[in-house]
């Protein structure tokens, strides 16, 4: 604590008093919360593997080999007798004891924008209400202590389908996801960077400090006469940005510290290395990390949107997904982190069971698959099932609010906990009427 106070002082070169406005809204309450919560259970984290575009359930977790809708995709055995998944995920099949497959997800939203918003916030878009992405709301709920890193970090998001689904909504910018983008250099050397985290190379550390001191001179009198939200928020975000610039926590982004063989196991591609980064962030106490699998390259689009040539496209994507996800689980387990880290795999919807004339599958919100695993989840089971042709849910349909409630419970959170929204109405973590699936919880 003492160190933080020092750096704050140095940053603005001010007496404590003139920054009282920011202090009150900034880190003091967090410190207070930390004191209250100490001595509780170990911190929990959540990793969302987001499949942008809507992955085919038939080629991943609900193969229908033998039926014409199943196409050429074969089913394989897993480490749990009786549970079979698609042939494209052979490594992951060995992890089934820690995974719970939901084969009965159902919504009415077949449009990318609305469905992306729904699955990522747990709520349908509704007038003026700005729902936060689950990463922001869960990150806020799970964060235990003041940290140099934000509570929600988003790796390689593809936001264009629904930009509103990637914001902190009514929670405000303090809970905005920190966006991290990958860069692939020569020989598939993937690195990650937070844009603009480093000062220009020609500036010495001393010069940067001088600049911040000058900024403090300017802010001092302005804040004193205008103690308003935009001014205080400006100072607060600069303070947090500088703390991050100077923090040792950002070494989390230096993947070269990892063993080469482990990096290889995750896969030398943006998603694989993104999963490794997720583990490093969780290790440093970041409560929510999401890794998007959009396609095979850095700036890919919604790769799972396989309207044409579905079978090759999904097989290629699974070639990236399978080692990355598998290694993430084993790596977390070896480090004793898996029991406190819930891993979610999902997209915004599934694909049509019927194969279209282009060898593709179109949008299908009615009956599709999502997977939960790791901490808080009772693995080794399948929940819900669909008809032989894949068109209808046979039992245990799971609505989006139910999924959200289950995730909350898995993370040790009460789904009925509320945050105050921009229209003054308290909004629960999971929508009213949500029921957690008890059978999936430990």
């Amino acid at each position, binding site marked *: 604590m003492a160190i933080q106070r020092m750096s704050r002082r140095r940053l603005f070169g001010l007496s404590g008093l003139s920054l009282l406005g920011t202090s009150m809204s900034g880190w003091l309450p967090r410190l207070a919360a930390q004191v209250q919560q100490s001595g509780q259970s170990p911190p929990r984290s959540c990793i969302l593997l987001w499949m942008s575009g809507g992955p085919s359930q038939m080629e991943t977790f609900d193969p229908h080999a033998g039926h014409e809708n199943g196409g050429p995709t074969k089913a394989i055995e897993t480490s749990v007798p009786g549970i079979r998944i698609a042939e494209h995920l052979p490594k992951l099949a060995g992890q089934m004891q820690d995974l719970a497959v939901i084969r009965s997800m159902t919504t009415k939203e077949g449009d990318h924008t609305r469905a992306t918003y729904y699955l990522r916030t747990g709520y349908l878009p509704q*007038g003026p209400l700005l729902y936060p992405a689950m990463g922001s709301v869960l990150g806020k709920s799970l964060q235990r202590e003041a940290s140099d890193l934000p509570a929600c970090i988003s790796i390689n998001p593809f936001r264009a389908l629904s930009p509103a689904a990637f914001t902190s909504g009514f929670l405000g910018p303090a809970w905005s996801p920190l966006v991290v983008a990958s860069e692939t250099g020569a020989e598939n050397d993937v690195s990650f960077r*937070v844009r603009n985290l480093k000062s220009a190379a020609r500036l010495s550390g001393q010069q940067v400090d001088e600049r911040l001191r000058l900024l403090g001179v300017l802010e001092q009198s302005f804040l004193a006469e205008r103690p308003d*939200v935009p001014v205080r928020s400006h100072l607060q975000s*600069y303070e947090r940005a500088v703390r991050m610039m100077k923090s040792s926590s950002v070494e989390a982004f230096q993947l070269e510290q990892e063993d080469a063989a482990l990096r290889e196991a995750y896969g030398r591609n943006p998603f694989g290395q993104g999963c490794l980064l997720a583990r490093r962030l969780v290790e440093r106490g970041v409560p929510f990390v999401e890794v998007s699998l959009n396609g095979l390259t850095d700036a890919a689009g919604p790769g799972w949107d396989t309207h044409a040539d579905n079978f090759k496209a999904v097989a290629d994507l699974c070639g990236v997904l399978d080692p990355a996800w598998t290694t993430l689980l084993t790596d977390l387990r070896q480090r004793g982190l898996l029991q406190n880290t819930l891993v979610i795999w999902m997209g915004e919807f599934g694909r049509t069971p019927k194969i279209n004339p282009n060898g593709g599958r179109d949008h299908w919100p009615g009956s599709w698959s999502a997977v939960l695993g790791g901490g808080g989840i009772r693995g080794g089971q399948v929940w819900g099932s669909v008809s032989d042709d894949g068109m209808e849910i046979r039992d245990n349909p799971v609505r989006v609010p139910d999924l959200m409630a289950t995730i909350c419970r898995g993370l040790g959170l009460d789904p009925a906990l509320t945050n105050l929204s921009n229209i003054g109405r308290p909004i629960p973590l999971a929508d009213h009427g949500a029921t957690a699936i008890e059978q999936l919880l430990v």
Partner: protein
Amino acid sequence: MANFLALLISLCLGPVPQQAVLQPAVTQGTESSGVVGRFTVAEAAAEIDRLFQQAWQASSVQPSLPATDEEYVRRLYLDLAGRVPAVSEVRAFLDDPNPQKRAALVEALLDSPAFVRHFTILWRNALIPDAFDDFGNRRMIPGFEAWLWTQFSAGVPYDQLVRELLTAPLEAGGGAGGPALRTASSPLAFYAIRELRPENLATGTSRAFLGVRLDCAQCHDHPFDRWKQGQFWSLAAFYSGFSPMDAESGMQMVMTERSDSHSIGIPDKGQTVQAAFLEGEQPDWSGGRTSREVLADWVTSPRNPWFSRMAANRVWALFMGQGIVHPVDDFSENNPPSHPEVLQLLADQLVAHEFDLKFLVRTITASRVYQLSSRQTDPSQADSLHFARAAVRGLTPEQLFDSLAEATGYYQPYRTDNPFVIAAETPRATFLDLFRDEGESPLQRETTILQALAMMNGDFVDAATSLENSQTLGSVVNFPLMSDEERLETLFLAALSRRPSEAERSALLPYIEQAESASAALADVFWALLNSSEFMLNH
């Protein structure tokens, strides 16, 4: 003449002690016949000042000091031109001995293309607020802006602008989803972002033009307000002629409209309602008008109190940071106006002046309340509802970037066929994307870490504060006849539109004079100025 009077009043107000009771220039109020008298700008501004003086006294509020010329010139440029003034513009204004210079500057800016551009962006935000949320909708924005641009540059009255929007034929511009809209001038984005759904268009119309939030009434009777589900769908029925969009593809491949359709079924209720206006008034279908024409005639009627009050409230909020009804589009019995008489005066005068938005702009900017300082000089000014000091508010992303460009001397290349189409990789596009704000109120504007990092370390500000690449900094450093003090002053004028205070001068000047490299020290100062909340906010 009107401007002259307005100016006299605003000038008289300047030095008057805070408690002084203001005499209105004219004593007439609204006329008893129900027809509202037409005020001059000076009369309207004086009446607003009188009403606020009364309100402040009643609440024991001490208004802040009058804004200095430095505060005023920056605020006015941001509010009318969408950017901070250039150094030369600040100097010209500060040195101008003309006692009418504040009103003269309003007139000069109202006549400038920058005003058309800025109002285009403000009204785009107001009319298609969710356009940036959807990839498909984003490409329609330039066409909508181009349409607004033609309206504002031609000085089209507000009622006509809205009427044109509400009755726009679908075919214009090659169809709402067509690629032609990328550059074609068309208001159809208003329909496209609402997916041509009658229910979305009903909520959009009522929020944008009537200030009524019907959203909840779509599914059930409004829990706190008087709106019933039937009323909602009666309004939606005016839009019932649109062919439904293809749900699977999300595309508007073929759009048709039965222009005489005016009934609609309430989903899941098996009940059909006929089109009716907000409070149940029955439309007159004679004269062969289309459903949307009938709706537009009612919405934009001078006798529709919702329409003029909403417009007046919106313009007030654009200049004061917050509506007299706040949020700006939430007129409701549970959300009364803070200063109902001021709102009514503005609404009445908007009607009396044939929906000339510039009349409201002139009136508001001439008022004492607009010309207050943002400095808090008394605790009673803390609540923004009193309008007892100028609001400290966030900039639109466009205001911020255009201000950065102005302050640093960055030349912005625009496309000639449609200046609203922005190439994706330009610094402007990157900035607009990063600083796009989801929040509703500029008074609650918050900064994200990524925004702070972009300002501190990003390429654009870095180039602007490096000696090789910055126009402003380069010319300040290289101009041989300037003293360091004059250099410091010029940088302050470029970024903050003011000269440094004594305290700032004594803190910053030694830093420059004692530095190994004075030019590097000036770059540091310029960096700090551009990163300050004073630069990044309107106040």
